[in-house]
């Protein structure tokens, strides 16, 4: 049962991340692309974090994974905002 849950979470995380990568390539404007970059820092990482936590629990591995994903999650919106500001200033 645990393996099935891990497989489903990994498949969801990888699928979401690949969808965001394709979205960045398909969209036409910088702002549309930033939308997919922002989604890539939330859905995929959290699914993979959940898979690791189901497998390992809250030990050293789990806490290190939480640290990496939390950095992505907290820094992602700041980075998207900074990039959007740069894109806006270049459009002027």
């Amino acid at each position, binding site marked *: 049962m645990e393996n099935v849950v891990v497989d489903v979470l*990994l498949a969801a995380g990888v699928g979401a991340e*690949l969808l965001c990568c394709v979205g*960045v*390539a398909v969209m036409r404007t*910088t702002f549309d692309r930033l939308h997919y970059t922002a989604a890539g820092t939330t859905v995929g990482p959290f699914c993979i974090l959940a898979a690791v936590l189901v*497998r390992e629990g809250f030990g050293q591995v789990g806490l290190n*994974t939480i640290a990496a994903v939390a950095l992505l999650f907290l820094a992602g919106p700041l980075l998207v905002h*900074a990039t959007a*500001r740069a894109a806006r200033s270049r459009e002027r």
Partner: protein
Amino acid sequence: MNAFETAALALLAGFVPLGWVCLRERELDGVVALELAGVVTTLVLICLAEGYHRGIYLGVAVVCSAVTWISGFVFARFFGQL
């Protein structure tokens, strides 16, 4: 090959469209693709560390996520001033 190794291999496919954007589109769009490539790299490192049962390698993933953040800010500021 376990599930985490398979996931890491599948995530590597995400570099193809991102690399295409870096090569073919405007430079700021390349920065956007580079930011997402950093996220994908962090996830690949997490999956490889878990897949090979080497918890100590997760430190590399933590450093990668921090460096992705810093490099994104540097690029955004640089291209914003041009």
